C-alpha cells in the first residue's frame, strides 16, 4: 500500500515536470480537488469563473459548469458536466461535455500525505476538440491547516486544434477555522496564467444527510498574461 502511491507519484511527477514548458489552454483557475471519496456520496454541483482584464480577449469571459456526481465504491467517484461559456461578444451557451472520475488511492491520514488521481475527458459540442487529463491529487494536514495540490497533465487533440500536451498546477492552503467558514489561499499556474488569491469555503447542513458546500474566491493575476482578476464560485449540494 505504501509503495503504490509513491510509484504513481514517481511516474507522473517527472513526466509533468518534463512537460512544464507547455501549459494548458483555457481557464486555469478552477476548483482544487481533494483526494477523498465518500461512500454513498451523491451531489449536484454548479461552479463558475468570471474574468476581468484590460484585454478584450480575456475580459468578461465566463465559464459555468453544472455537474451530477456519485461514488460507486468507497474509492471511486464519477461526475458528468455540462460546460457553458459566455464572452463579451457571445451569449451563454453549452460548449462542451465532460466526464471525470476520481480515484482515492490512500486512506486519509495513513501516510505522510494523502493521494488520489483524477481522470477527465472533455468533448467540445460544435468543434472537433477533445481533451483528456490526468491530475495527481494530494493533501496534507498540518494541525488546523490543510494543504492540497493538483498537478495535471493534459492532452488536447482534434481537427480544430493543434494537438498538444499541457500542464497545470494549483495549490491551496486552507485553515480549518469552523465547519461553516474556512479561509484559504490559492495559487495557480498554467498556460498564460500565474495567479494567487483568497478563497473562502464552508459547509451548511440542510437536514438529514444533505449538505451544501460553498466556495468563493477572487484570484489575482501575477503577470501581464494572466487575467487581472478571476472571480470563482461553487455550490455543491450533497444528498
Amino acid at each position, binding site marked *: 500500500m505504501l509503495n503504490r502511491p509513491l510509484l504513481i507519484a514517481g511516474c507522473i511527477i517527472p513526466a509533468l515536470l518534463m512537460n512544464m514548458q507547455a501549459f494548458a489552454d483555457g481557464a486555469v483557475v478552477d476548483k482544487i480537488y481533494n483526494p477523498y471519496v465518500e461512500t454513498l456520496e451523491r451531489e449536484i454541483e454548479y461552479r463558475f469563473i468570471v474574468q476581468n482584464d484590460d484585454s478584450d480577449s480575456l475580459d468578461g469571459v465566463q465559464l459555468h459548469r453544472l455537474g451530477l456526481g456519485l461514488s460507486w465504491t468507497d474509492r471511486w467517484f464519477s461526475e458528468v458536466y455540462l460546460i457553458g461559456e459566455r464572452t463579451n461578444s457571445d451569449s451563454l451557451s453549452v460548449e462542451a461535455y465532460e466526464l471525470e472520475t476520481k480515484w482515492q488511492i490512500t*486512506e486519509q491520514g495513513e501516510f505522510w500525505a494523502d493521494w488520489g488521481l483524477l481522470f477527465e475527458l472533455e468533448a467540445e459540442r460544435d468543434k472537433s476538440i477533445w481533451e483528456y487529463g490526468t491530475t495527481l491529487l494530494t493533501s496534507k494536514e498540518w494541525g488546523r491547516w490543510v494543504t492540497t495540490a493538483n498537478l495535471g497533465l493534459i492532452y488536447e487533440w482534434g481537427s480544430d486544434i493543434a494537438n498538444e500536451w499541457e500542464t497545470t498546477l494549483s495549490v491551496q492552503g486552507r485553515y480549518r477555522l469552523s465547519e461553516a467558514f474556512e479561509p484559504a489561499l490559492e495559487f495557480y499556474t498554467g498556460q498564460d496564467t500565474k495567479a494567487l488569491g483568497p478563497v473562502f469555503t464552508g459547509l451548511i447542513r440542510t437536514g438529514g444527510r444533505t449538505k451544501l458546500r460553498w466556495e468563493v474566491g477572487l484570484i489575482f493575476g501575477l503577470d501581464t498574461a494572466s487575467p487581472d482578476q478571476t472571480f470563482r464560485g461553487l455550490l455543491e449540494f450533497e444528498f
Partner: protein
Amino acid sequence: MHKRKILLLWILFALPATAKPPVFEIEIRNHLFEPSELIVPANTKIKLIVYNRDKTPEEFESYELNREKVIMGTRKAVVFIGPLKPGNYPFFGEFNPKTAQGTIVAR
C-alpha cells in the same frame, strides 16, 4: 564505524515497529457507538477500526478530527486519526446523529 553500523541496524528494525500505529476499536450497535468515549494517547497517530453491527449504513464523522467515513451495514472501516493534541474530540453518526454520538479523548 561500528557505532554507525549499530545505528543503521537499529533504524532498520525500529522503523517497521514505529510505522504501525496502535489499534483501537469501536462498534456501532443499535445506532449507538460503543464505547461512546474512547481514550487514546495524545501526540500519537492511531488506527481506529469501526465495526458496524447494524444492518444499515452509518457514518463516523467529526469536523474536529477532520474525518468522514461511511461504514456499510455489517461491515467495518478503518479511520486513521491524529496525532492529536490532548483534548476532547467529538464525533457522530450522520445517519443517526441524535443517538450515535461519541468522544475521543486524547491524553
